[in-house]
C-alpha cells in the first residue's frame, strides 16, 4: 500500500485508462475550463482565509505551541448517491451495534456470557468504567456523536479502520471546508447537486436536547465543555458552541450545587442540562476518576448517576472504540443486530494471542502495528516504510508488551487527486462521516471529513502527521 503495488490501487477520480469516473465527470468538465494560474491563486487564497478566521490546531509536543493550519486541498472528494446509500446503511448498523454493546457491557454482559468476547478484554481495560455499571444514561444513548473512520479499497469496498466513540473531532473542518469551497467556487454548486452539510450544528443541538435528563428545563440548556484554548481542537469546540448557540464552558465554570451541575454566570449559578464534553473521561470528575486532574468538576458523576445531567458522549464509551475491541466488531454487529456486517473490518492480529504475535513478528515489515490505546497516528509502525532500526525497536516493544499492540496489513487505500503546482496528483485518503444518535434515531450527515496524505505515497492522513483535508461531497440522487 505504499502504492508500489499500483495494480491494486484504486483512484476515485480516474479509471486506470485515464478516463474520468462518472462521479467526477461534471467536476472534471468544470475543472478543465478553469485557468490554471487562477486556480493557483485561489489555492493560496484558501490558506489566507483559514488563517484569518483562525481555523488552526495546536500540535502536541510542539515546543513553541505554534498554531498550525491543517492544509486544505481544493479538489473535492466525491461520493455518489448510490455509494452513500450503502455506506449509511453500514454505518447505521454499526452505530446501533455499538450502543447495544455498551448497554450490554454495563448491564448483563450477555456477549461475555455467550463466550464471544473473552472477559479479560474488559477486566484489563482502563476504558471500561465500573462507575457506569448498572446505570443507563438519559434516553438510553451512550454514543451521541460518533465518527467512523473508513477507507476505500475498491469500487464497492469501504472498510472500517476505527470507530471513534469517545469525542470524535474534525466536524468543524467538514463545515469550514464546504464554506471555503462555496466561497471560492460558487458556480460549482450551481452545476453539481451536492448535498448540504451546513445544518450539522442544528442537528447536533436538536439531537443533544432530545437526550436531556427528565429534570431539564422546557428548553434544555446545552453547553460544550472544553479543556480550554490550549487544546488542539479548541477552535472546533468554540465553533460548535457558537453555531449551536450553546455556552462554551470550562471545568472551572462549573460546580455541583443542589444536585445539579451549575455554571457560574455574572448573575449567579444556573443549571446545565446537557454537557457535550470534549474532555476525556479521566478529566471529568476528580472525585471519581483522576484525583490529580485540575480540569474536572468534583461530584459531576454523582449528579450524572442520579439523573441530574446528560453527559455526551457517556463516560465509559471508550471501551467500544478500543483497538482490541475493534477486532471483535464483526461478532459484535452480528450479536446485537442479528445481521451480517455491511461494512467490513480490516483484518487484524491481536498480538496478545501467541499465534498472532508470531505471525506479526515474522511479517513485521509488511504490517502496520498500532498501540491498542493510542490515537492520532502516534506510536505506530508502518512496516514497509520503516527502517531496519525502527523495525528492531518495535520488535522489542512487541515482545515486551504484546497486549499493547494490534497489527494490520498495509491496505491499498484509494486515492483522490490533490491540486499541485504541476497539476493533479493522486494521494491516499480516508473518510470520517459524522453520526448523531438520540432517542429519535440515528442521523448521518451526508458528507464527512476526508483526510488526505499530502506526501506522495504516504498512507498517514492524520493532521498531526502532516495530513490535509478535502471537502467531501455526497451527490444528490
Amino acid at each position, binding site marked *: 500500500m505504499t502504492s508500489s503495488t499500483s495494480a491494486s490501487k484504486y483512484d476515485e477520480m480516474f479509471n486506470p485508462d485515464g478516463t474520468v469516473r462518472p462521479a467526477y465527470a461534471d467536476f472534471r468538465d468544470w475543472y478543465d475550463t478553469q485557468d490554471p494560474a487562477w486556480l493557483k491563486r485561489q489555492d493560496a487564497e484558501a490558506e489566507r482565509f483559514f*488563517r*484569518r*478566521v*483562525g481555523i488552526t490546531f495546536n500540535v502536541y509536543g510542539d515546543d513553541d505551541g505554534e498554531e498550525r493550519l491543517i492544509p486544505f486541498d481544493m479538489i473535492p472528494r466525491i461520493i455518489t448517491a448510490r455509494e452513500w446509500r450503502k455506506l449509511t446503511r453500514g454505518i447505521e448498523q454499526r452505530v446501533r451495534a455499538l450502543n447495544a454493546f455498551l448497554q450490554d457491557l454495563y448491564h448483563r454482559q450477555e456477549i461475555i456470557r455467550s463466550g464471544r468476547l473473552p472477559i479479560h478484554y474488559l477486566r484489563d481495560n482502563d476504558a471500561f468504567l465500573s462507575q457506569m455499571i448498572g446505570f443507563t444514561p438519559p434516553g438510553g444513548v451512550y454514543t451521541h456523536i460518533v465518527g467512523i473512520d473508513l477507507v476505500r479499497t475498491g469500487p464497492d469496498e469501504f472498510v472500517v479502520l476505527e470507530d471513534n466513540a469517545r469525542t470524535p473531532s474534525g466536524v468543524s473542518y467538514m463545515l469550514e471546508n464546504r464554506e471555503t469551497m462555496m466561497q471560492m467556487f460558487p458556480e460549482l454548486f450551481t452545476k453539481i447537486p451536492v448535498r448540504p452539510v451546513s445544518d450539522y450544528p442544528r442537528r447536533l443541538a436538536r439531537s443533544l436536547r432530545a437526550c436531556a435528563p427528565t429534570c431539564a428545563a422546557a428548553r434544555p440548556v446545552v453547553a460544550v465543555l472544553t479543556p*480550554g*484554548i490550549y487544546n488542539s481542537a*479548541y477552535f472546533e469546540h*468554540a465553533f460548535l*458552541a*457558537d453555531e449551536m448557540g*450553546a*455556552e*462554551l*464552558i*470550562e471545568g*472551572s*465554570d462549573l460546580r455541583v450545587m443542589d444536585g445539579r451541575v451549575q*455554571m*457560574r*454566570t*455574572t*448573575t*449567579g449559578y444556573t443549571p446545565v442540562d446537557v454537557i457535550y464534553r470534549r474532555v476525556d473521561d479521566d478529566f471529568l470528575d476528580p472525585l471519581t476518576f483522576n484525583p490529580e486532574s485540575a480540569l474536572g468538576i468534583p461530584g459531576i458523576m454523582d449528579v450524572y448517576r442520579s439523573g441530574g445531567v446528560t453527559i455526551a458522549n457517556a463516560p465509559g464509551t471508550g471501551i467500544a472504540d478500543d483497538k482490541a475491541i475493534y477486532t471483535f466488531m464483526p461478532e459484535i454487529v452480528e450479536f446485537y443486530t442479528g445481521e451480517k456486517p455491511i461494512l467490513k473490518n480490516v483484518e487484524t492480529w491481536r498480538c496478545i494471542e501467541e499465534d498472532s504475535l508470531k505471525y506479526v513478528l515474522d511479517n513485521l515489515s509488511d504490517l502496520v502495528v498500532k498501540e491498542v490505546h493510542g490515537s492520532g497516528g502516534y506510536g505506530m509502525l508502518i512496516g514497509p516504510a520503516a527502517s531496519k532500526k525502527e523495525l528492531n525497536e518495535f520488535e522489542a516493544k512487541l515482545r515486551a508488551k504484546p497486549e499493547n499492540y494490534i497489527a494490520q496489513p498495509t491496505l491499498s487505500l484509494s486515492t483522490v487527486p490533490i491540486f499541485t503546482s504541476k497539476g493533479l496528483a493522486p494521494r491516499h485518503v480516508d473518510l470520517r462521516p459524522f453520526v448523531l444518535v438520540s432517542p429519535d434515531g440515528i442521523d448521518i450527515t451526508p458528507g464527512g471529513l476526508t483526510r488526505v496524505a499530502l506526501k506522495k505515497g504516504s498512507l498517514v492522513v492524520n493532521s498531526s502527521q502532516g495530513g490535509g483535508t478535502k471537502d467531501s461531497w455526497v451527490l444528490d440522487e
Partner: protein
Amino acid sequence: MLGRSANGVFWMARYLERAENTARLIDVGFHLALTRGDRSSQEEEWKSVLTTTGQLEDYSEKHTEFFGPQVFNYLLRDRDNPASVLQMIEFARTNARMVRTSITDEVWEAINETWMTLRDVLSRPVRETNLGDVLSTIRSQATLVRGAMEGSMLRNDVFNFARIGTFIERADSTARILDVKYYVLLPSVAWVGSSLDNVQWDTLLRSVAGDRAYSWLNAGTMDPREIARFLILDGRFPRSLAFCYDKVRSNMAGIAMQYGGETEAHELLRDAGAQLHQLDIEQIFDRGLHEFLQDVIAKTNRIGACIAAEYRFIE
C-alpha cells in the same frame, strides 16, 4: 453570560486599549527626541515614558541607558517585557479566543488579524526610520477592532463589560500620564512661561491625542490650568477622565438594567464620578493635583476589582 466570559471581554478590551496607549506614549517620546537636541533631556523623556507605563523598574534591570531605539523596542517587542505591545496584543487575542462564542466573527477576525499583522511587523527590531509606520499600524489596528465591536456586537452585557474594560483602562492611563507630568502644570513653573513649557504642555496633550482638540477649543492659547481642565473635566474629549467615567457609568447602568439591580461597584462608581462633576479645576488645584490624580488612580483600580468580584469574573 459566564463570569469567565465577562472577565475575558473585559481584559480583551483593556489589553487592546493599553497597547494603543503605549503606542501613543512612544510616539510622543519619539517626537520629543526629534525636537530636543541634547542627549540627557532625551533620556529624561524616555524615562518618563517608562514611568508612565509602569515599566521603568523592569527596564532598568536590563538596561542602564535610556537610548531611544532601545527603549521603544523594549516597549514594543521585547520578549522579556511582559507588558510590551506585542505581549498586550497576544493577551488580547488569548482572551478573545477564550470568549470566542461571546464576540462576533467580525470582532474575532479583527483581533486575529491585528495579532497576525503586529506579530509580523514586530518580528524584527524597529528602527527610527520605520517607527512611525509601526505606531500608526498599531493605532489603525486598534481602530479596526473598535470599529468591529461598535458595528457588529449586540448591545448587551457582553458589550457593556468590554466597554467598561476599555474605559477603566483609559481612565487609568490618562490619570497616569497626567500624574507623571503634573508638575509642568503647576503655577510655579507655569509662571515662567518659557518655550520649554510650551513643548511640555504640547507633549502632554499629544500623549492623549488631545493637541488638536485643545487648540481648536482654545484658539491655540496654551494655558496649564485650561489644559488640566480639558484633560480631567471636559466630558466632550474622549480621553478625559470625565468622559471615561461617564462611559463606565452608562455601561454599568446598562448592566444594572439587564440584571435588575445595582451592586457595590455602582456605589463606588457614583462616589468617584461625582467629584469629576462637582469639582472645578480651581478646587482640584487647591487640593493638590498630584493627590487628586493619585486618588483617581486608586479609585479606578478599586472599581475594576469590585466589578470583577460582583460579577464573578473568577471563582
